[in-house]
């Protein structure tokens, strides 16, 4: 079955620009903001969002990388994922953290990310920015900023590819393999 493209490079660029504006609007600037990307693709999206923010606002926004695999509730049922170093260059105590990931699905990754954040301090607020919300939540979690909402079937696979990791910017739906 052929892949169905949801977003091309221009769509992704515009969505990230809009989300950056929404973050500025809601937080009235970049003061006390920390952008935290969830490995792997969330890290790259966080970098792009941060550079949008500093472009629009004229001041740098700190970016952190978070690996959440050690906080998952389903270690036993997944193949051993690679653990990547978490990079937390600033103290998040009392800050406004914007978590960034590529796809919001069951919400379990975000729950794990919130646990992980807690080990580094107590942010004043945690917000969630997502490139693509595909529904099927298993936890009471919603995104504050959404690049695009896309209804999907549970067995479909959403494939996000980014220049930094895959050489192309694209979001597509592919049928689950047999």
């Amino acid at each position, binding site marked *: 079955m052929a892949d169905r493209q949801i977003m091309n490079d221009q769509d992704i660029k515009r969505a990230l620009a809009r989300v950056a504006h929404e973050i500025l609007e809601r937080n009235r600037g970049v003061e006390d903001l920390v952008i935290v990307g969830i490995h792997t693709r969330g890290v790259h999206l966080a970098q792009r969002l941060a550079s949008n923010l500093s472009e629009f606002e004229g001041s740098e926004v700190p970016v952190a990388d978070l*690996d959440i*695999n*050690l*906080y*998952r509730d389903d*270690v*036993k*049922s*997944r*193949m*051993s*994922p*690679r*653990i*990547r*170093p*978490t*990079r937390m260059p600033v103290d998040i105590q009392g800050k406004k953290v914007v978590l960034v990931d590529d796809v919001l699905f069951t919400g379990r990754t975000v729950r794990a990310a919130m*646990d*992980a954040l807690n*080990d*580094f301090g107590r942010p004043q607020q945690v917000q969630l920015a997502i490139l693509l919300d595909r529904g099927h939540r298993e936890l009471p979690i919603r995104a504050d900023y959404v690049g695009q909402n896309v209804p999907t079937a549970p067995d479909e696979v959403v494939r996000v590819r980014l220049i930094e990791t895959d050489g192309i910017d694209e979001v597509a739906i592919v049928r689950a393999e047999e």
Partner: protein
Amino acid sequence: MSLLNAIETEAQPQIEAAAVRKRRRHVLDLDDFSQQEILEVLESAEGMSEVLHRDIKKVPALRGRVVVTLFYEASTRTRISFEEAGKILSADVINMSASGSSTEKGESLLNTGLTIQAMGVDIIVIRHPHSGAPYLLAQHLDRVGIINAGDGIHAHPTQALLDLYTVKEKLGRLEGLKIVIVGDVLHSRVARSNIWGFVKMGAQVILCGPSTLLPLDMLRPSGNDDQDNPLASVQVETNLDRALEGADVVMALRLQAERQNGGFLPSMREYIRRWQVTEARLSRANPDALVMHPGPMNEGIEISSTLAHGGRSVIEQQVTNGVAIRMALLYHLSAGGE
């Protein structure tokens, strides 16, 4: 069943498993690890190392898992680093040693293993004076993962992985490096696992020591010509000065005092004179060469004190990295599978 059979039946499925990415159940030696899998463990250890440097060294990854360290031999760093690794990952760690357990009443290793399995333990970390003991447990226990923390003179895979990690961390690569392992290689499980590890990662391994203490049987198994011998690239050099020429890593091994009485050495003085790793000898190696030792050290015998605590020594980093590697392995064995 003989040890040889145990090795074959246990190791074989895992070689295939690496190809289809099936779950690894045991860590017995590095001979059944692919280069890819070693790299994955080293990369995960880097992530684990970040956790080790946090203010709060605790993550919930292995909550509810039980790890037993079953040590039939003395150990400081290996046992404690496994315990610390398990605890940082939130596993429950139970330490057991042969003394004070039912072993003193004559319980066999197998029955001890079955007893521990019946208690619902997830992973057994075993050290045993007999080569092959971890394979026996891996063969007969079907619900417990086994990690070999040193068996006789056979293997010490977690030490080898932490050595690989330390070299890669310090020198940025493993491929093409010249690794010199000096001393009693014959009786060294650390060296034997390191030979597999470094060779798999594309390094050049040179073994140096008195010819009575070099494991020629391991390097050139009978009926195995060089073409299908995975260790064919390993070189042997009894002259330490020649061996150290251009070396990137020098690893000194502990010379067990009892070897002197076993007819392996003419005298300790001769050993020191010909094979002690010293500053003067190290001048033949690369300027940024690393000095390693798996511990515990006999300073002044296999390595000079100034070198052991000098600027090129990474002996303390080896210990720190040991915790990260053991975290990565405990996690690696616990993930996936269902």
